[in-house]
């Protein structure tokens, strides 16, 4: 044998085994971290055509989410407002500010402002905003504390695991409907435990887990 393979090759199988183990661990860990929506989606923060600050409007000025996203309670889709909504105030406030030129132009022409969509569900997912907000799922759950963001960023992974987290145990997440748009609302865990179960029971919440609930 020694005429074909030198003595040191006796150690090779062990080294290969250890190497393969380390490599396998590294690849798994790498995929786990880098290839999941927790990494690929969270933190996405495109530059918008108009430097609209949610922090200023929603937090500092205290405008309700629904003032602009007024379709959220009625529609599957939570709309981005037309420029007219902005101009309700901005006709008077900062009415000549060059940063708002695009908004004024849109108001004049009716051509929409080319906002860059941040939160997207894939085409094969059916998601309905109205049913969620009507049954105590707050904006914060999926969009994070937008009221603290100057430029909106993707705060949650919005992976299927993320959806199922709540659909499997809705009582841990849902709140009273009047707190849905309260972005700073906090609750003690023991209160949530009681209230959540009561909401699920009284509102007859059946958070579907069958495939066709979302993949129709």
């Amino acid at each position, binding site marked *: 044998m020694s005429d*074909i393979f030198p003595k040191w090759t006796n150690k090779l199988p062990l080294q290969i085994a250890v190497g393969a183990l380390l490599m396998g661990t590294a690849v798994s860990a790498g995929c786990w971290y880098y290839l999941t*929506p927790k990494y690929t989606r969270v933190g996405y923060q495109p530059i918008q055509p108009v430097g609209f600050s949610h922090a200023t409007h929603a937090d500092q000025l205290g405008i309700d989410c629904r003032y602009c996203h007024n379709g959220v309670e009625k529609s599957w889709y939570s709309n981005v407002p037309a420029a007219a909504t902005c101009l309700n105030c901005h006709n008077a406030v900062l009415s000549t500010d060059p940063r708002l030129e695009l908004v004024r132009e849109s108001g004049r022409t009716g051509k929409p402002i080319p906002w860059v969509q941040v939160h997207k569900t894939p085409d094969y997912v059916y998601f309905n905003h109205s049913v969620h907000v009507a049954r105590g799922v707050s904006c914060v759950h999926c969009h994070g504390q937008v009221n603290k963001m100057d430029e909106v960023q993707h705060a949650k992974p919005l992976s*299927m*695991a*993320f*959806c*199922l*987290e709540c659909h499997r145990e809705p009582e841990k997440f849902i709140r009273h409907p009047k707190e849905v748009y309260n972005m700073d609302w906090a609750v003690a865990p023991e209160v949530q435990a009681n209230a959540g179960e009561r909401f699920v029971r009284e509102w007859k919440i059946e958070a579907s887990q069958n495939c066709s609930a979302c993949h129709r």
Partner: protein
Amino acid sequence: MDATADRMAVKVAAPPAELEREPLVLKHRSLAWVSDTVAGIAEGKTPTWWWAAFVPSFLGMLMCFLMIGYLFSTGIGVWGLNNPVGWAWDITNFVFWIGIGHAGTLISAVLFLLRQKWRTSINRSAEAMTLFAVVCAMIFPAIHVGRVWLAWWLFPLPNSNGIWPQFRSPLLWDVFAVSTYGTVSLLFWYVGLIPDLATMRDRAKSAVRKFCYGFFALGWTGSNRHWRNYEKAYLLLAGLSTPLVLSVHSIVSFDFAVSQVPGWHTTIFPPYFVAGAIFSGFGMVLTLLIPLRTLCKLEDVITVRHVELMGKVILATGSIVGYAYGMEFFIAWYGGNPYELYAFKNRAFGPYWWAYWTMISCNVISPQLFWFKKIRTNIVAVFILSIFVNIGMWFERFVIIVTSLHRDYLPSNWGYFKPTIVDILTFVGSFGLFLTLFLLFIRFLPLIAISEVKGVTPLADPHHPLGGSKGGHH
């Protein structure tokens, strides 16, 4: 050689002639002859017949890959599948190939545990056939999923969808059954190869061959300790593989039997599929080995007795399959379920009658010829019948799958499946893949288990006049 001839004259106390079994290696071939002949096939100049077989096979394999590439780039619509026939040639080919593998496992594991010494001449190539058939089989379920880049969802891996595969689905059991089968078959085949790889290494002339065979021989020296570990490992693997002979095709049959489709929802499926798998596997072993024994001049190792024994296995399993076909019809009538009865009537006399009767002729009628010893020992006849077995068993799966699907409960859901050219070329190409792998195997590895055949030659018997330790001083 003179001394050899002298010794041959020595009288041995043998059993009476009528009880004498035909030896497993003929013409008193010496142990060295076995090594030289078998190893010689993988050494020396590549024979012309090998190239003549390899080139078309290789082109076929490329065609298979091309078709698969076309499928991936375009989508499942390139096949003839549509409502109501959502499974057709893809799953037919899967079951066909996975079934063929079963002969290898049966020969290598079950016949080993049952001490059937005749297995030694054919087990290596049958195991190789098993492996390559499993490779072909794995392709079809993998490519039929449509979005093949998500095929890893078949495996229970943690993922950001937060779900596991459906553990109650036989399709998932299939993933485990087939991958276990592939792994165990590979290990079994490889462990059995180790002593022969060492033989190849020791005979190798070039440095590359020395390195390659030496690498895979894992430092085998043929010491007593090596042999003891080897035999123990081989026995354990044989024990491990034996349940697989039954389990794999049982689970494949569950893909159908666990569903509620009339024609599929049948409790007889597991044993019937296992028998069919062994039947088809032996058919393929014969189809491969009958030409091979002539081309490689192995008639003294793969003897007529071997061929005859395999013919008997085909007769037995073919009859079981025939019984199952009959019993299916009986139960369809006796069970009193009109849908079930309709499914079977439609199978035999509906639009796919031609497929059904091809299946019956090839699987039930033609194997009955193996009752005759004259036919069992006629190599050409056996070869032709073995091809019928292959054809019949492909049609069996086609009949089960397509005839059960093509007429749903409502006549508005009736259809007639026709394969597209892509269906056909992919299947034909899978034979190219199979034969390419098999031809590479016979060109580079000993296609007969040299060390095991040596153990069952008449000369291995210490009481044989030429056998045992040659000096005769035992």
